[in-house]
Every structure is written in structure tokens, then in C-alpha cells.
């Protein structure tokens, strides 16, 4: 169906190619996965096939053969007019960010009908409308008639992605390219979208090029897979085979970095485990203001009656999808957002009643590390200042030199070299910045660190490093971690207990192993079943004799 040969992509004014000599083939009706970490060039490859690369790139070299009714064509040699005919008609593409990928000022129906207008001009308005509604129903969008007239901002992320799929499929293409279609979606929605793509593939006999970084997805729906690293294709083969027995060093590295394959964490030293944190009935409600005088008519219950305990050396994972309130929970515990009700006690002392001065002093013991490495460090300060300033504010260390010593020690613990101190944040990669963030939290010698989705923006291999650093710190310092995440693999690996949240409410709480094996709440079950797990799928495949 599609054969890519020796594809090379370069930026104008740069010698080093971003993608080099990539070759693979996709058969009719198969789901081909292209896997790699960020910067591997997988998205660029897809954009090159569609020839919608940004102007800053040179036209790619190599060949891209597409089989059609009239024979096989090399897409890279087609003129622009011919390419426009191919796009949307014979090859459809969907993208990662459903929120911004639809035109905000056109209705859903208008956007889909445009494809028909371009590629099926023989259909009149009425027939086009019928076909559009048909395809909207096919992607399982509830109430297609109403959705037809709506604007994209009224739809949820999952619904928008379905609209994108509908738009890509309405002209019945032979090939669908999906560039990380589920990465920005919640886990439960992700599972549905993947199943949808798979089903449509079977129904229409369509080929699918699925780009992802998640091996779980590959194991779930992939027929064949190719692994890319720094612009080169390092390995390809049947999905099951590659995952079970990776040939290339890099592939092996990637598989090993999956949380389920990581070596077990060092155990916490024996001894008493004080109860550090007691949260009781925590509530955070935001008023919704309407009307002429802006009176509150309703409340958004971001956190609704959540209670839990946290002991020294323990990792409590807070799991939930977007909008579940887990981030708000973390901030409310720290009083970065003022709770509307309930109590938070640190070592028996109520936190919510402290005045400003006392609160500032108490903050020493509860630290936080954030999700986005790009904005978690003040870009104007050197790392030295970032690390020593909190120490100075809490009178740790007798003088500046002593604080520098302590900063160096902390950097050692997060495996960063000493000359980091004299640099600025923009000189570091995302993973390194997360480590600096952890160092900043450690510098005050806290008892509790709240980790707010600290690995969600990181590649799998970087995530593995961070998780192991956290595990080591927990063992050495008896640190308690409140680990907020939506990644179940990480939860299983790192946490002792877990708390499941949905719409602000606590669905379930208990020991991790227990909750995963025997979930009590329905939502927990639903959540667990939606997570694509490599081993699971491999196991099933092995059982059915496919490996």
C-alpha cells in the first residue's frame, strides 16, 4: 500500500538531517506503528509523506510510493495540485491536539463537508450532508444531527478527536496517518479511540500508520512496528516479536524503561513510620458567577470531601483523569489554593489556621515538584540562586558558602554535575530540569514532597531515571511522597497506596496491589481496564499462540 524508501529530511541552512534514510512498507489493511521518543523524527516522517512540512524544511529526498487504482505513484514527485488531490482523498491524517486542530469559527458539519466538496464534487449538498451524518455516526459521536451544527469549542477532547477521525475518513481513504492521536486524551477515552480506529480499519480495509511513543498502544492494536531513534529507523518487525524480543540495543532500552520492567525499588529502612499528614474532608469549591450582579449561582466542586493519611517513607499515588481534581488537591494541601473547608494536619498541627508568618515557616516541610519543566524554574536566576534562596529564607546554613556546599550535595543526589550551579535553566533538557526541580524541593530537607505529574511531560527513558531517583530518595531519607499522576504503570511501580479520584470525589483508597488486583469501585475497574499494558497483551497473544 505504502512504501517509504530512503526518506531524508533536512532543515534549510543545516547540514545534519533530522530524518535519515528511513525505509518501511505498510501492507493493505494493516496497522503499522511508528514508535520513538521525542526528537526521533516520527512526526516529521508523517508530515513528509503528506508533504505538509513547514517552509523551513528542504523538500524531502527519497521516494514515497502509494499504490492506487491507476498504479503506484511517488508522492514526492507529484506537483502541488496532484498532492492536493491525494490529501484527504487517498491519505487522511489526524493530529495530536484535538483542542486546536479544528477551525474554531466553522461548525463541525462545515468542516467535514469541505472534504466532500473538494474530493467528491459529484455529491450535491443534500447527499453530502447525508454522508457527513453517516460518518459522524460511524465514529460513535452521540447525537450527530446536533453536533453537525455545533462549533468545536462546545465538544470535549474525545469528541473532537472523533470529529477529526470522521473528517479524515469521510472520503474513504486507503491510508490513515494518525500522529499521536490519543496522547492528549484521558486514558479511558484513549482506549475507546484506539478501538474505534482499529474497528474502522477492519471495516474499510484501510491501512493505518499510527505514530506513538507508548509501547502499550503498540501491543494493543499494532500489527507491525518500526522504532525510530534520532532520525534513523533502528528496528522493524511484527509487533509481538519486537516487543518480546527486541533486536536493537535502543529498542531494548526503551522496553526496559517501561515502568513494568523497571528493577524493584530499594526498600525503606526499618523503623517507625510517623503519620505526617492527616487530611480530613478537604473541600475546594469555586463559585460560578452569573447575571447582572455576578452572583454565585453554582459551585464547581473541584475537590469534594477527600480524606487520607500519609506516613513517613510512604508513597501515596493520587490517580484520576483530567478534571478529577487531583492537581487542585495537591495545591490545596499546600495552601497554594485556599481550601473551602475541611482540615489538613501536619504532625498534628492544623495547617489551615496558620497565619502568614507561621505558614511560611511551616512550608519548609511540605515541598512540591511540578509537571512542566519549561516553566518550573525562574529563567532569570542561576541554578545556584534558585537552590540557595530557599535556604536563606529559612536560615538553613550559617553563611553563603555553607549553602553552596549543601546545594552541591543535593545536586549529587539527583545525579547532576557540580557545574550545574553556574548555569541558567534554558541550558538544560527537560529531564535535567525536572531533576533540578527535585533538588530545589530537597534543599529544605522536607518530610513530604508533592509530585504533581512530574513525569507526564517526559519521555519513557527519562521517566525511568526520575522514578528511580525518587525511589532512592524515599529509601534514604524516609521521604513521604504524594504522587499525582494519571499513568497507571507508574502508580503500580512506585506507590504503596493509591487514591482514585473522579470529579472531585474519592472513589477508592487502599494499598496499590490490593486496589489493582481487586478494585472495589466501578470507576476504578473502568480505569484499570482502559490502560494499555504491554505484558497483558503479550500474555494474551502468547496464550493464543501468536508469538
Amino acid at each position: 500500500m505504502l512504501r517509504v524508501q530512503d526518506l531524508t529530511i533536512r532543515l534549510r541552512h543545516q547540514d545534519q538531517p533530522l530524518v535519515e534514510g528511513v525505509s518501511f512498507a505498510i501492507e493493505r489493511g494493516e496497522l503499522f506503528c511508528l514508535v520513538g521518543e521525542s526528537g526521533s523524527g516520527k512526526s516529521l516522517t508523517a508530515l513528509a509523506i503528506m508533504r505538509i512540512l513547514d517552509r523551513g524544511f528542504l523538500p524531502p529526498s527519497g521516494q514515497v510510493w502509494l499504490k492506487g487504482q491507476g498504479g503506484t505513484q511517488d508522492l514526492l514527485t507529484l506537483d502541488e495540485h496532484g498532492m492536493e488531490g491525494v490529501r484527504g482523498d487517498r491519505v487522511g491524517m489526524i493530529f495530536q491536539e484535538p483542542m486546536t486542530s479544528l477551525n474554531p469559527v466553522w461548525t463541525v458539519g462545515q468542516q467535514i463537508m469541505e472534504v466532500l466538496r473538494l474530493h467528491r464534487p459529484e455529491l450535491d449538498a443534500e447527499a453530502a450532508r447525508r454522508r457527513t451524518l453517516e460518518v459522524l455516526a460511524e465514529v460513535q459521536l452521540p447525537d450527530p444531527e446536533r453536533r453537525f451544527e455545533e462549533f468545536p469549542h462546545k465538544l470535549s477532547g474525545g469528541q473532537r478527536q472523533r470529529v477529526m477521525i470522521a473528517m479524515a475518513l469521510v472520503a474513504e481513504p486507503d491510508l490513515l496517518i494518525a500522529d499521536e492521536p490519543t496522547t492528549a486524551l484521558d486514558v479511558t477515552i484513549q482506549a475507546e479511540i484506539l478501538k474505534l480506529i482499529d474497528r474502522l480499519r477492519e471495516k474499510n480495509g484501510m491501512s493505518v500508520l499510527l505514530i506513538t511513543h507508548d509501547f502499550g498502544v503498540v501491543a494493543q492494536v499494532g500489527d507491525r512496528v518500526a522504532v525510530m531513534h534520532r532520525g534513523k529507523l533502528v528496528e522493524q518487525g511484527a509487533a509481538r516479536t519486537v516487543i518480546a524480543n527486541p533486536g536493537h540495543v535502543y529498542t531494548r532500552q526503551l522496553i526496559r524503561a517501561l515502568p513494568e520492567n523497571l528493577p524493584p525499588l530499594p526498600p525503606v529502612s526499618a523503623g517507625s513510620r510517623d503519620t505526617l499528614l492527616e487530611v480530613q474532608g478537604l473541600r475546594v469549591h469555586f463559585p460560578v458567577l452569573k447575571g447582572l450582579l455576578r452572583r454565585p449561582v453554582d459551585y464547581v466542586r473541584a475537590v469534594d470531601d477527600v480524606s487520607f493519611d500519609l506516613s513517613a517513607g510512604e508513597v501515596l499515588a493520587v490517580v484520576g483523569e483530567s478534571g478529577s481534581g487531583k492537581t487542585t488537591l495537591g495545591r490545596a494541601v499546600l495552601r497554594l489554593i485556599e481550601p473551602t473547608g475541611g482540615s489538613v494536619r501536619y504532625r498534628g498541627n492544623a495547617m489551615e489556621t496558620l497565619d502568614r508568618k507561621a505558614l511560611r515557616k511551616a512550608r519548609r516541610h511540605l515541598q512540591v515538584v511540578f509537571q512542566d519543566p519549561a516553566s518550573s524554574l525562574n529563567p532569570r536566576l542561576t541554578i545556584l540562586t534558585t537552590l540557595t534562596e530557599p535556604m536563606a529564607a529559612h536560615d538553613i546554613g550559617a553563611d553563603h558558602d555553607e549553602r553552596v556546599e549543601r546545594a552541591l550535595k543535593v545536586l549529587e543526589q539527583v545525579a547532576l554535575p557540580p557545574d550545574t550551579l553556574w548555569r541558567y535553566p534554558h541550558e538544560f533538557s527537560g529531564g535535567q530540569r525536572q531533576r533540578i526541580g527535585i533538588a530545589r524541593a530537597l534543599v529544605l530537607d522536607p518530610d513530604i514532597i508533592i509530585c504533581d505529574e512530574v513525569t507526564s511531560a517526559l519521555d519513557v527513558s527519562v521517566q525511568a531515571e526520575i522514578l528511580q531517583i525518587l525511589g532512592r530518595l524515599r529509601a534514604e531519607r524516609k521521604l513521604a511522597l504524594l504522587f499525582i499522576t494519571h499513568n497507571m504503570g507508574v502508580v503500580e511501580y512506585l506507590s504503596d497506596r493509591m487514591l482514585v479520584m473522579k470529579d472531585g470525589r474519592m472513589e477508592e483508597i487502599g494499598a496499590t496491589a490490593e486496589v489493582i488486583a481487586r478494585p472495589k469501585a466501578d470507576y476504578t475497574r473502568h480505569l484499570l481496564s482502559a490502560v494499555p499494558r504491554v505484558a497483558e497483551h503479550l500474555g494474551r497473544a502468547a496464550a493464543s499462540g501468536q508469538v
Partner: protein
Amino acid sequence: MTEQPRSPSWSRRILGEVLLRWGARLGLAWIALLTLVAVFAPLLANTHPLLVEDAEGWHSPMLTHLTPADTALLGAFFLALVLLFSPGAPLWRFLSWLGGLALIGALSLVLVSPPALVVYEQYREAEARGEYQRVVRAPIPYSAKDYLRDYADTGLESPRSSAERLHWFGTDENGADVLSRMIHATRIALSIGFIATGIALVIGVILGGLMGYFSGIVDIIGMRLVEIFEAIPTLFLLLTFVAFFGRSLYLMMLIIGLTSWSGYARYVRAEFLRLRQQDFVQGAIASGLSLPSILFRHMLPNGMAPILVAASFGVASAILAEATLSFLGLGLVDDPSWGQMLNQAVQSSTFNWWMAAFPGGAIFLTVFAYNLIGEALRDAVDPHSQSGRSAPPVKAAA
């Protein structure tokens, strides 16, 4: 602990980016030229000869007629030059320059007192009488207020039209040399630009910062104030101020500053609102840092970027405002000003093109220079338009 070489800080990087752009370089060059002209005006355009040798020996009329403003400017210039090349943090050097400026200003006011009565004709008459053995004159031997009363027929004259006197840019309606007046008017233009914008910045940053950080009732009242000052047509308010309060340079600076702070307040408020949600600010709060530290170390430096850009455009519009007021006849009366000279271009029935071209051109070039600098700053600060030299950080590839 030995300190290792530091990588360039943000300010230095931005400066580097800005200087890369030819527009900024041109603009800065022009401003530098104007600054030199303003500082050395008494040496460039003066009826008082620099040096005279007559029967009593050598003396320098120029030096004896220096005003406190002249000496203060000269002193400030050399102090700035010295401080520029001395070590130390930029902030401290700037503050010590300000302190030095105040000192020099006070000293000048006390010590320097030029004679009150100035007769410009005496030098030309004395030279005609042959009293001088040697004379060293300024390149443009006319002062700004020298109305050439010893020549009877003066009035608006086009450049180089008179046989006996050389006026490169012609003369204005009172007979004064245009080039000389333009040189001396540079001081007013530049100082109004900086001081007025400075006042507006201070007010705007303080109010905007308070609004952005505290929200609530402070924000509501502050926004109403901002809206009021935005909705008043600025020019009209300026006209009202000047017409009712009379004309004085300092008053004009104050008034222009008071009417243009609303833009800066909006920017600072928007930046603070955005920054408050940024992770590193939340992290600073969570680390228990004190409020002043959070405001001045974490929030303000990171929010300065759009304000710097706006300030550059603001200086341009302050200069324009002063020129407009002068043009409408509401500016300074006796002191030279570019706008006032522009006014004279159309006052009589003929079109006096040299009054429009030269002072008008000076206004245009100065405003253009500041706009170029502002544009370059904007491009340098905007992360989307990097010149490609510094690649944006790669996402999370260890």
C-alpha cells in the same frame, strides 16, 4: 569556592539579540548622536566664541556663559562614561550614576551662575572693530536665542540665501539660526522623552503590579482608574493641562507622564496575572519565600519584557506629544523646540520648506529610531521569532 565562568544572563542575551538587528543598531546610533549633540550643545552652536585673544589676553566667553544645565549635562555625561567601564553590577552602577547626577546638579545650581544679561551682538561688533587678535568660534557661530538684532533685515530666510551670513538650515521668523535652535532643542526632546516615560513607567508598574498580584478590590478600583485614563483623549487632557496650568518644561514632562501610564499598568497587570500561575512562582511561594522576594526577584524581572518594548515606543510617543503641543502653540515660549519650529513652516502665506524639512525631519528620525529599537526589542524577546541561533530547548530527551 571558586566561581566558574558564568554563561550569559538573560539581559545580556537579549541585548545581544537586539544588537544583531540592523534596525536597532541604526536607531541606537542616532540616539547616541543626539545625546552627544545635546550634551555638547554649547560647544557646537554658540555665539559666544570658544576662545578670544584680545588686548587683555585670552579668555573664553563660552565658559563664562555656561548655564547650570550645561555643566550638569556635561558632568553627567562624563560620569556615565566612567561608570560604563567600571566593574560592578549594572543596577548599582545605575543607582550611583543617579546619585552622582543629583550631586552634580546641586553643585551646578550653587556654583555656576552665568551673567544675566546677554548681548549677542557684542562679539560681531567687536570683531568688526578689529578688537580681536585671534578668535576661535563654535562650528555654528549662532546661539539658539541670538535673534541677529544687529542685522536689520532678518526674518524667515531659506538656507544659504544670505550673502553675508552662513545659515545652513536657514533662519526662523525671529531671525535665529535654525540649525542652532535645532541643536539646543535636542535637549528638550530627549529629556522629555526619558523623564515623561520614566514617570509613566513608575506609576504604571506600581499600579499594575498591585492590581496583578492582589486582585480583588484593588484590581476593580485600579481597572476603573485605568479605563478612565484610557478613555480620556490623551491629547485633549494634555491640552487642558497645559492651557490651564501654563507652560513649563517640567510641567509638561509631568503631565505627559501622568497621561500615559495606563498602557504600562495594563501590561504589568497582565504579566503578573500570568506569572502568578506559573509553576516557578508557585514554587517560590511553596518554598516559603517572602513577598518582596517573590515580587521583585521572581515576578517583576520576568514580566519586564513587554514593558521594555512598550517603553521604547512610549518614549517615541512622548516626544511626539511634546512636538504636537508645541505645534499647536501650547508649548514652550522662548526655548527652542522642534514642534514649534514646524509650526512656523505654514504660518506665513508662503510655504517655508526648510522649517518643515529640518525640524520635522529631526522629529521623524528620532521617533523612527525609538520605534526601530522597540521593534528589535520585541523581536528579541518573543520566543517564537528566534533568529535560529539559539535553538529552543528540546522536549525531555534526557
